[in-house]
Every structure is written in structure tokens, then in C-alpha cells.
């Protein structure tokens, strides 16, 4: 029971991260399309932002790990 609730929690945090990283990726691609010469800078910024969003999601996942067992 706890395991399935934990799975739900993990799933919810993944939804948030998915939306966030999707936004970041989309905007980054837009930015690169508008200014291809800034691609490398945008990529770095994108990866950092994605990592931060992903960090938030991973906190959720880890908390749901804590619920396991």
C-alpha cells in the first residue's frame, strides 16, 4: 500500500518535472532558432535549468523512496 502511494508520489513529481523540462527545452529550441549563434550558451543555460528542475523532481522521487519499505 505504502509502495503504491510512493509510486503515485514519484509519478506526480515526474509530471511536474516533465512540464518544467518541456518548457525549458521548448524555449531553448525557440531561442536557438531565433539566434543560432548563441546556441552553445543557450544549451548550457538550458542544461543548468533542466538540472535544477530535475533536482526538484528527484527530491520527490527520493521522498517516495523513503516511503518504500
Amino acid at each position, binding site marked *: 500500500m505504502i509502495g503504491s502511494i510512493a509510486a503515485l508520489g514519484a509519478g506526480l513529481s515526474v509530471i511536474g518535472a516533465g512540464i518544467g523540462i518541456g518548457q525549458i527545452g521548448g524555449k531553448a529550441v525557440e531561442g536557438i532558432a531565433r539566434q543560432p549563434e548563441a546556441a552553445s550558451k543557450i544549451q548550457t543555460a538550458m542544461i*543548468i535549468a533542466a538540472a535544477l528542475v530535475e533536482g526538484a523532481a528527484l527530491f520527490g522521487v*527520493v521522498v517516495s523512496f523513503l516511503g518504500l519499505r
Partner: protein
Amino acid sequence: MYNSSILKIKIFTLLRICAVFLTLATFSIPAFSQEKHEESAEKPFEPSEVILEHIADSHSLHVWNTTAIPLPVILYTDKGLEVFSSSHFEHGHADYTGKYYTYRLVEDKVKIVGANNILADSATVWKWNSSLIDFSITRNVASMWMGMIVLLVIFFSVSSAYKKRSGKAPKGLQSFMEPLILFVRDDIARPNIGYKYQRFMPLLLTVFFFIWVNNLIGLVPFFPGGANLTGNIAVTLVLSVITLIVVNLNGNKHYWAHIFIPADVPVWIWPLWWVIELVGIISKPFALMIRLFANITAGHIIVLSLISLIFVFKSMGIAPVSVAFVIFMDVLELLVAALQAFIFTLLTALFIGGAIEEHHH
């Protein structure tokens, strides 16, 4: 232009590694399935158990089927040090009586067997008051040393190549590693730390290659590899604590002034500000720890889950699908292995850069 060429080299490198791993992955899967079949013959197959067993640490190095290399068990008890081979446990089927206590292996954790068969856990970071601290050379430690040897061999030979061929164009392994080293310098250290980057290059390079190589070793699905080292929270904890220490030891007066005497903030808010800043100081490396741990562990869990599908459905029909997905995931994990090493190093550089930045208010 420079950046994109570096990226191209990186992608090319990645593709080469991917190709090698693809071949290896296809070879390794039969071995894995054989092992699982024997287990599933005994008891109903429980995927989460198998998966957790594979991603957790272990006291023996599994080689093939039932063959395993025992590793030394080093126990620091309240009465003294105990060193013996893990083969005495016979994979958890037997207790071992040492000089001071009798020990039992439960779920690959050493426990003291007390009177009336009561088990005493070894100390963890959450619970220190135990008479047993486990300093064994576990699978992860062995894997880490292997990674260390790989790194030392690679970079000592590269370094000697630089000495031998000083001033000449790189060649062989040297030309393979140089773009990576330059990548760390030009794309990670320099833009994020600034002109003082040189002091931090050794740390960043070591962290980058340590994480990357251990990620890759963790992806090798057969004997010497496969340990979930960088997906172990103890390892990522150490790495992130090192980041924490380095960042705060190098923080300049602007960094500390921003934390303790923030300008533009009313004095009565300062205590609250300090708490927030303290949380910020801790949470940044904490996020590093969790990120690396969760990414690598998740990768291992997914690959193992896909393999487990075969045994859950008890049919070879699902195997091709499962194997195809595993190969796909393995390739993705190769990307993740490099990406996580990159992100860890990048964020470390970013934090260092923030701590040593000269502010112009």
C-alpha cells in the same frame, strides 16, 4: 565554432563508446537471464527484490551464475577490529563467529547475532549507537578502486605522453582525452568560475572523470562492472560534501557579506535571511547528491525492470522486446552517464564561481 567542434568530437566519442557497449550489452543479456532463471525456479520471481539486490551494495563480487568472488569484511566493533573473508557467510546461509561476536549476513548487511538470536544492526549515519561499524571492502569499494585504477592508468599514460611529446600534436589516447580535458576547462571551468579557474581545474577534472568513468563501469552489465557506485548515496554524499567544503572554503568576503550582512535587507530580517542562506548553502550540494544518486539508480532500476519483464511473463517471447528496450535504455544511460558527470561538474564550477565572484554593487 570552437564550441560546436568540441561538441562534435564529444558526440563522435560518445557514438564510439555506444557502439562498444551495444555489442557488449547484446552479449551480456543471456548471462543475466540464465542466472535469473535458476533463482526463479526456486521461488516466485519478485522483481523489486532482485532489482534492489542488484542496485544495493554487496559483500561479494558476482562473476557468473553462482560463481562469486568473496570480498574482505572489515568490521570495527567496540571490542576491536575484525577482518575475515565474506566467503565465511556462504552467501548469507551461514553465521561466522569471529574474535568478538558472531556475525550474520542479512540482505547483504552484516549484523551481530546476540543472545536469543537477536540481531544488532551495524551503525548507519542515522543510528550511530551500535557496537559494529562496517568498513568492509564491498562491491562498490572494489568497483571504485577499479575505476581509480582505470583513471590512474589513463591519465598517467596521457601525462607521460604530454611529457614525451611536449609541444607536439596529441596522439592516440592523448588525443582522445585532450578534447575532454579542454571541454572541462573551456565549457565548464572558464565560463563559470572566471579567470581564477586554474586553481579549481584539478578538482573539477577529477570529479568529472571520476563520476563519468564510474558511471560507465556501472553500466557494464557483466563481471567487473555493474556496481551501482555513483548511484549509491554514500558516494554522492561524499562528492557533494567535497563540493560544499570547497565552495565555502573559497568563499570570498563578498560571498560571506551577502550571507551575513546583506545590503538592501532590513536588519530585523537578518536572522530569517541567515536561515534561508544556510538552507541555500546546504541544499545546493544536497541537490547534487540527490541528482546523481537518483539518476544513476533510476537508470539501473529501469534496465533491470525491463530485463525482469522476461521473468515476470515467464516467456521468451517477450525477450526480444525487452532486450530491444534494454539496449535503448543502455544507450540512453551512456548519455546520462556523461551528462550527469557534466552537470555535477558544471554545478560545482557554478557554485565555486558564485563564491569567488567579485561583486560590483
